């Protein structure tokens, strides 16, 4: 199953694994211990993270070491920038709506001044 960056991180367990790997290259046992997730779950999620490009695996003798790859995070960053622009635009409309309302309440208060 090949997931895009969003689907890969949609799962809270996988987010916890990614956060654990922020500390650097680790073996499955370390991730199990630090993330507090059952071994079988960690192996499955590491496979999914590997397939979706978040995690690299290299053998070191008997051990398999897992580490984060930067590429999907760049992709995520670009998306976040777009998400931010979307909210900036939304708050521009907030500002415009506010101005319109202010205009009305100034008129209203002028009107009430006269009465």
């Amino acid at each position, binding site marked *: 199953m090949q997931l*895009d960056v*969003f*689907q890969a*991180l*949609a*799962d*809270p367990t996988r*987010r*916890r694994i*990614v*956060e654990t790997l922020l500390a650097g290259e680790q073996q499955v046992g370390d991730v199990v211990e630090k993330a507090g997730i059952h071994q079988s779950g960690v192996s499955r999620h590491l496979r999914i993270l590997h397939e979706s490009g978040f995690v690299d695996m290299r053998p070191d003798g008997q051990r398999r070491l897992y580490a984060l790859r930067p590429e999907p995070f760049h992709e995520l960053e670009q*998306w*976040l920038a777009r*998400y*931010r622009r*979307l*909210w*900036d*635009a*939304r*708050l521009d*409309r*907030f*500002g*415009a*709506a*506010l*101005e*319109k*309302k*202010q205009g009305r*309440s100034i008129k209203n208060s002028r009107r009430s001044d006269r009465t």
Partner: protein
Amino acid sequence: MSPVSTPHAPTKTVIERTYRAALADVWNLWTTREGFESWWGPQGFRVDVAELDARAGGTLRYEMIAATPEMVRAMTEAGQPVTHGVRSTFADVRPMTHLVLRNVIDFVPGVPPYEADITVSLSQEGERVRMVVTLAPLHSPEFSAMQKEGFESQLTKLDERFA
């Protein structure tokens, strides 16, 4: 009902704005039907509020409606409905100061339901009102909708259409 988990947000987006306005007017744009309808929603959409109860635990329900002929056509061509219902909760409300709008994301296949918060803090600074909006983008309705519908490619299509 399945339990709702609140995963730790890997990243938060904080947006600050300052307005020369009355605090009550800024507050009302978030907490009244008329105010909310006057600005909420992505470009090309409008919202129709069915219920807005801005008390702690109160409900916000609205329809998000494609509002321009271009958007209606774009949504139709992308196989999306032109209107869709959204339900949120005012999780925390401290009048004129602070509110948390909580969206329950329970429609992503294979992902347990979770909560996505939009936090708004207001403070009076002289004649101005400072508004800080804190978002958890990875847990936002927009993000979840993209996951659900593979929206990324459709957004690209929209970008091209409106370029």
